[in-house]
């Protein structure tokens, strides 16, 4: 590795390469429950050319490369399972272009969600992008590389990977490619009408190449936002509530929260409905239509819209929600990891009861909920387990609960999202052999030496 380190230093500069025990320690682990594994080196590239040179070197030496953005995926996808180089992308933090009229932004592969948000607020206040509730240092590229979702996933077209308008990526053999309209003409406005090659990098957990630039859709930013909170006595009616409200096309974001804590909320799931508008009249109209769509329920059942005092609203509005990170302190232990399951909305009650059983069986603290994706085309159902980093037994039980939740999700007809390496194997075991073969062929074609994030999506 000595010789390689010197070459890495020549590529990115001495101060941006480290093989010190301290960096090895920090980059060997994430906030979740997967086993740590040391990298051989951590490298911070500053440009596409530097990424290319690092990849070529890694290929020559058959050294694994693990791209990392915010490193906040929680499920170990940036842990270098087979050692090698962790490529921390966050020095590539330039916002290259915002096209106000065609509503897209082009950013480098290490630009964070928070920094893009702040940039738009200052320079393009009429525009916003869809933010996940991850801490604001999560990157745009890392998020689409795992099919993330966020505040506009319900109203504006689904997963964030579906909002990608173009990519520049460095292939595992070192060539830089452009995908989407930017491959052919100057603008980054669309992936159609060309063959859609961007999909080769979306959802692949960094196993097919490194995203160095990304075009992402922006959306109009209405002047006002409000939150409606619908409380029900039963999870069973949630799918139909979601169906009715998404049918109105009046809600921006919809999140169901099913929490065993606080105690008074147990058995009382709530549906948080964010509504945005440009005027009081528009807001009143939208809220009125949403209310009307579920009148049947609040007139006939013990459920209805809760009055929400302003201080409470501020907890639910805004993005990303800081309170979600506070879940890590529930056990006073600095940790949580969640299984996010992409599944049809009608599976929600089943997922809830499976989640409660698993939490009880393993004696772990679990919070559940779901973000609606698209007009209810599916949801991201989450079982979040808070654990105490200083309590090994608690961590072990939480890890077992996660594994069991992955399997339960598949049995229910959903698919674990951003699954840990063992969870990926659970998925692959259920996958059609033809699909696995295709994945393998693509991988070996793109990455003949198997250097990209090995251990992930390794279909055997």
């Amino acid at each position, binding site marked *: 590795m000595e010789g390689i380190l010197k070459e890495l230093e020549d590529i990115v500069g001495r101060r941006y390469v480290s093989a010190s*025990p301290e*960096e090895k*320690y*920090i980059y060997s682990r994430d906030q979740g429950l997967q086993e740590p594994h040391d990298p051989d080196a951590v490298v911070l590239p500053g440009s596409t050319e530097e990424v290319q040179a690092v990849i070529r070197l890694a290929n020559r030496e058959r050294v694994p490369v693990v791209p990392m953005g915010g490193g906040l995926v929680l499920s170990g996808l940036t842990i270098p399972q087979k050692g090698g180089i962790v490529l921390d992308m966050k020095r590539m933090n330039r916002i290259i272009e915002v096209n106000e009229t065609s509503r897209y932004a082009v950013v480098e592969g290490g630009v964070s969600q928070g920094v893009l948000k*702040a940039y738009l607020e200052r320079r393009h206040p009429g525009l916003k992008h869809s933010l996940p509730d991850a801490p*604001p240092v999560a990157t745009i590229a890392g998020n689409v590389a795992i099919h993330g979702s966020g505040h506009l996933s319900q109203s504006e077209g689904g997963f964030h990977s579906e909002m990608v308008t173009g990519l520049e990526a460095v292939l595992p053999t070192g060539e830089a490619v452009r995908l989407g309209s930017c491959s052919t003409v100057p603008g980054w406005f669309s992936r159609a009408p060309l063959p859609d090659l961007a999909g080769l990098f979306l959802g692949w957990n960094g196993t097919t190449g490194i995203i160095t630039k990304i075009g992402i859709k922006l959306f109009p930013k209405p002047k006002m936002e409000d939150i409606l909170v619908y409380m029900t006595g039963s999870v069973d009616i949630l799918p139909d509530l979601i169906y009715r409200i998404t049918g109105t096309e009046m809600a921006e974001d919809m999140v169901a929260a099913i929490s065993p804590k606080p105690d008074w909320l147990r058995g009382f799931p709530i549906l948080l409905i964010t509504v945005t508008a440009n005027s009081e009249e528009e807001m009143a109209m939208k809220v009125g239509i949403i209310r009307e769509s579920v009148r049947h329920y609040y007139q006939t059942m013990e459920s209805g819209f809760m009055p929400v005092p302003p201080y409470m609203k501020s907890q639910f509005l805004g993005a990303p929600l800081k309170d979600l*990170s*506070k879940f890590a302190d529930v056990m006073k232990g*600095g940790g949580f990891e969640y299984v996010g399951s992409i599944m049809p909305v009608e599976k929600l009650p089943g997922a809830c009861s499976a989640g409660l059983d698993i939490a009880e069986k393993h004696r772990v603290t679990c919070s559940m909920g779901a973000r609606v994706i698209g007009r209810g085309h599916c949801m991201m159902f989450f079982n979040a387990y808070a654990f105490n980093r200083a309590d090994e037994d608690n961590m072990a039980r939480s890890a077992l609960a996660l594994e069991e939740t992955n399997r339960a999700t598949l049995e229910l007809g959903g698919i674990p999202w951003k699954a840990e390496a063992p969870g990926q194997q659970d998925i692959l075991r259920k996958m059609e052999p033809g699909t696995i073969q295709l994945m393998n062929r693509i991988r070996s074609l793109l990455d003949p030496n198997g250097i990209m994030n090995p251990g992930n999506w390794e279909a055997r």
Partner: protein
Amino acid sequence: MEYQELLHRCFRCGWCKLPLNFVDINCPAYMTYRFESFSPGGRLWLIRAWLQGDVEMSDRFREIIFSCATCKNCVEACALPKIKDNLVDIVIAARNEIVQTGKLPGPVRDYLMRVYDTGNPYGKPQADRLRWTDGLDVPLYRDQEFLLFIGDVGAFDESGMEMARNVAKALQLAGVSFGIMGEEEISDGNDVYALGEKDLFKHLAERLMKGFGDRGVKKIIALSPHSYNAFKNYYAAAGGKIDVLHFSHLLALKLSNINGGTLQARVTFHDPCYLGRWNNDYNACRSVLGGIRGIELAEMERNRANSLCCGGGGGNFFTAMLGSGPDSPSRHRVREALDTGADILAVACPICRKMLEDAVKDESAEDSIRVRDIAGIVLEAAGAWH
């Protein structure tokens, strides 16, 4: 180690890397090094790893621990209450552990040794503490209303000395009655404390408290926000009863005594961490600037609680661990100031003054912007400059 029981509660979620408005990285150490290990959360995880024996004490480890500028951006932005409340104290406690081992990074050791040996971090004779007064009529403290505490940078650094002269002249112009300690002044210990040398801090504090007591000092004006912080928070916590103001507080109060004047300039103000985030004062300096005709105040994107540290806090001014390269906080700050289109970058701390002056030169921006301390701006407006 003190606070050991809290360390595992940091989630390493990274909220602490950004300001509250997310504009850009706002942790000076992380901004400079860019490795996760130099972020606030990374630092806490490494301290825990060290205490558990998972990483050893090494030069790199010390560099990580001592590169924190104690600017408190992380305290402002941290997501988890218990960690947030104690973040910088945890770093200082870890430094204290390292001090106990006796193996310090060279620049930290040298700094502490000089303070120990000579009472100032420059290792200069105490007689030099009066050099800044050359040509000025500044009395020693006898029974004036205030003691003006100059601090190390104001007394020994060329830029700091200019600031000391400005502050003394502006206070005189405002009719404030004050005297100085002169050769008897020693280091206030703020940055010694920040570097974890609590015993040396105690020794300095006791000596200074005695000096104040012997002179019957009741009220102090601090030139440096670092001194202000030490007297207000650490000395008070140690039972020292001192009424302390920063010089900007007095200028804000007495500006009407100065026959105003005008300064046609676009000014952007750089909040010093030890006035702003440490002591929640964001208004005094702005009120001084706002009181001068012709000044148009243009805020940087990171201002008040979101302000970016110049990189000189926590002893870094002397240990220079954050360097002066293009990724250093002071260079970032100057670029941010240039973005406002301001002609003047206003400062209220001698450390910020020197750091940002150097950064303006490194950015070759001398023709676009000049660094001025608040007192200098008051003098310039009043036509009393030089």
